[in-house]
């Protein structure tokens, strides 16, 4: 028996192989095992563990009773490892004969298996434009084998990150962004609802990347206090009624009013509504008619106040914004600059932590519309291939991708991107606690799922049903995922790869700082 052997396959079939664990085999849930064959290697993954015993259940209960009640003193199992053991349920996930492919054979009956080693994964080649996720995990152990996928493909085909709170999704995003920060094959926009990605003096973040100055832009309403940050201020002229679709609920009358206002005043439509300018008909030479009821205008003004924080200050006749995120005088270039930055393959983090949900989504919508328009034009002109993939990170994805939202408010830019963004090299990285509320049609388009731990059975079921690989036996695996552990299921992986995501802080500390640059200052 090979010294590496940790178990033997004793029964089962394609869906479920039963492995008896060697007494010191230490097989864990989620472990990757290997059966060496003459022609290659068969990879198995453990999805369940149970006890096996040569002793009947009632005898075991009796024995336990004796031990618990103290009447078994001096008695114990003779040859305990032989008679009581662990059975691991596993399934074949990959067959490696030169190149990897889906297994269509059973492992050898009574074949021995061993734990996977780093060398077994030498077929995982780092792609040309790598997107880093973490390290291969087997059970709770981490192998020194990195998980990279082809960035442009994965990003343009969307990523879904289903996870409940506290499972490490923020850490995952930070780890991904850190590695890809200075790689210009992709631009990534992050709507940072908790201001956790950029970093502060007290907390490490993307700002600590050696290339942050060249590749990272940070927009925040509090930019004045953070050197290098750009003020998050969007000029009202950047917003059109279309940007509000699917983000804010308006009645039909209100939609009509907004389009009329837009027709009359073009990019100044919001300013004019807030200034209470009557929206008149466009009658040349005739008396202007008021086409929108005062009541409707008042409601719109109130909604904009709530949504944008914008109001008209009669004391100095100025249009003001409570959150300072919107203005009618500055911020004209914000959206354009954000997109230019993304199109250079750089990363943009927008701090939306001080903004309402809808405001955050609106800002994202404005930018996303612009990106989509640009990429559509680029495709028409035949130059889309020269542009990097642009991906938008959005948290609490059901706000815009949820079934209920889509039914009640109609589609929005995010759902449009989810459905057709791939054609235009635009993708979403959608984070959600509730996969079950996202329509299957959208889930089907999200071709990479990074599954973090989830204690809700219904959610796990929903996730499993939508993955690229068959994870029907992985319910327990998913339920047992610890913080920082994940399974990545993707059209671009040969099998659902169990992963350990390194701690972001550790990566930052390990990164060798670049030698101090010499400065040539010329005046």
């Amino acid at each position, binding site marked *: 028996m090979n010294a590496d052997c940790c178990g033997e396959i004793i029964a089962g079939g394609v869906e479920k192989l039963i492995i008896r664990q060697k007494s010191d085999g230490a097989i864990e849930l989620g472990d990757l095992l290997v059966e060496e064959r003459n022609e290659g290697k068969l990879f198995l993954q453990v999805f369940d563990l149970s006890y096996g015993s*040569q002793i009947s259940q009632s005898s075991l209960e009796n024995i336990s009773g004796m031990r618990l009640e103290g009447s078994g003193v*001096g008695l114990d199992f003779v040859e305990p490892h032989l008679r009581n053991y662990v059975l691991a349920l596993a399934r074949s996930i990959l067959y490696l004969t030169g190149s990897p492919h889906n297994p269509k054979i059973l492992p050898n009956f009574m074949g021995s298996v061993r734990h996977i080693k780093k060398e077994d994964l030498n077929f995982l080649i780092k792609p040309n434009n790598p997107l880093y996720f973490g390290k291969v995990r087997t059970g709770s152990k981490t192998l020194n084998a990195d998980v990279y996928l082809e960035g442009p493909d994965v990003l343009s085909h969307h990523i879904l990150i289903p996870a409940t709170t506290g499972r490490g999704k923020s850490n995952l995003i930070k780890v991904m962004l850190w590695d890809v920060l200075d790689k210009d094959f992709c631009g990534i926009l992050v709507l940072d609802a908790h201001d956790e990605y950029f970093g502060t003096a007290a907390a490490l973040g993307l700002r600590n990347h050696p290339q942050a100055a060249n590749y990272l832009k940070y927009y925040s309403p509090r930019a004045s206090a953070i050197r290098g940050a750009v003020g998050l201020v969007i000029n009202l002229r950047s917003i059109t009624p279309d940007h509000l679709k699917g983000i804010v609920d308006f009645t039909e009358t209100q939609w009509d009013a907004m389009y009329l206002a837009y027709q009359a005043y073009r990019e100044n439509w919001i300013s004019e509504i807030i200034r209470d300018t009557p929206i008149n008909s466009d009658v040349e030479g005739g008396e202007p008619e008021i086409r929108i009821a005062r009541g409707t205008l008042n409601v719109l003004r109130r909604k904009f106040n709530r949504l944008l924080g914008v109001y008209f200050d009669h004391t100095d006749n100025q249009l003001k914004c409570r959150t300072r995120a919107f203005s009618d005088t500055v911020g004209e270039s914000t959206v354009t600059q954000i997109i230019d930055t993304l199109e250079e393959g750089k990363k943009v983090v927008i701090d939306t932590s001080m903004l309402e949900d809808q405001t955050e989504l609106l800002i994202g919508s404005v930018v996303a519309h612009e990106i989509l328009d640009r990429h559509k034009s680029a495709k028409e002109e035949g130059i889309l291939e020269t542009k990097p993939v642009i991906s938008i990170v959005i948290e609490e994805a059901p706000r815009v991708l949820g079934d209920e939202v889509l039914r009640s408010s109609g589609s929005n830019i995010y759902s449009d991107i989810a459905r057709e963004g791939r054609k235009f090299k635009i993708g979403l990285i959608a984070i959600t606690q509730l996969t079950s509320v996202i329509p299957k049609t959208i889930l089907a388009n999200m071709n990479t799922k990074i599954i973090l731990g989830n204690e809700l059975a219904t959610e796990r079921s929903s996730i499993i049903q939508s993955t690229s690989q068959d994870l029907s036996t992985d319910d327990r695996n998913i339920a047992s995922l610890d913080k920082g552990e994940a399974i990545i299921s993707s059209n671009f992986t040969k099998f659902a790869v169990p992963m350990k995501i390194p701690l972001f802080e550790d990566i930052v500390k390990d990164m060798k700082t670049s030698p101090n640059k010499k400065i040539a200052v010329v005046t």
Partner: protein
Amino acid sequence: MLSETISRLINGLHQNVNEYDLGDPYFQEDAYRIYPFARENFYPINGNGSSRKIAFVDGGNQELIGAPNFSVQLNRIYFNVFSETQRINQNELPQAIDFFSVTLLNLNDNNTQYKTLLFATKNDFSDYLPFESHLSFDSTDRLIRGTTRTDIKEVASVARRFAEWNYSHFIIDRILDKDDVLVSDGTLQTSFPNEVHYLDVLHERARNKGVTFSGLAKTSNMITTTGLSLLGSLHKLVEDWGINFEEWYYSPLAEGLSKDHSVIMTIVKLHKKADHIFRYEISNRQMKDLDDLNLNEVITCLAKNSVDIGFPGYPYGLIDADNNARVRANEIETYRVMLLSEMSKLGLWKKFAHHMRSTDAHHILNLLVGGYGR
């Protein structure tokens, strides 16, 4: 109504089974010297048995196909070796040997004769099998228990029994050393003609090598002279006489005087937590060579192997041997199918099917109600 019936039943049992006189050990035949119950025959198990190896042997068999006139069986003999609770691995002998046996009935002039043919599943095993010639006998031979014509399935177990004894020779020769112990599952009493020869040679071989040849019986139908269960009576004596040994043996109980059963019988309680006491018999030739100290040591080393929490007081080696010697129902079907398909291939299916159908109705019923095998 039912509860009243049960109550009357128990009362009737109680009235008819009385313990006021336990009696003495009772053996029906004259072939035994009986020792009346005596307090001084109880001994504590407190010897030093650490250095002895114990080999445990057991066998199993199951019918594959059968008819009133033939039975094809799969047989298995298994052994293990322990030193206290540590298994000792060895390469000298196969740990288990499997073989097929075909027991045939012939009727000549009203005389039923049985003949058994042996087929090892592997060539290597052939050397360990008994001689086929020893497995032929007449059904009226008084050594065979039962009625005038014995059920062939019972007779078919002859192959397994003989194989056990035969294999034990090899175990003594190649595995065990002086002062070691061989324990067979069950008594050392013969059931078949010619069996006594195997036992005889075994007794002698063991004695010459200094190996204690013994048997431990799980079950006992022994009774006392007052009709009570012998083991039950001993339990009561332990209480009545205030025997406070946690582990003990009672010796001698009886001595077998005939060649069919030449042993000294003892009763053993091998662990303080044991609910069961067992009959343990040692070849009487060796018993004579064993003084009290050595006997205690032999039984002590058995006791030291009897500490499994699953069955305190029963040797773990026999638990293991029983488990591994069994021929299980799910093994049978594969071989059965092979046999039947070979019959079919050779055009013999029709010939044998008629005979087999006379006994396999039960099998069909089993299949109907979800049973499997026999």
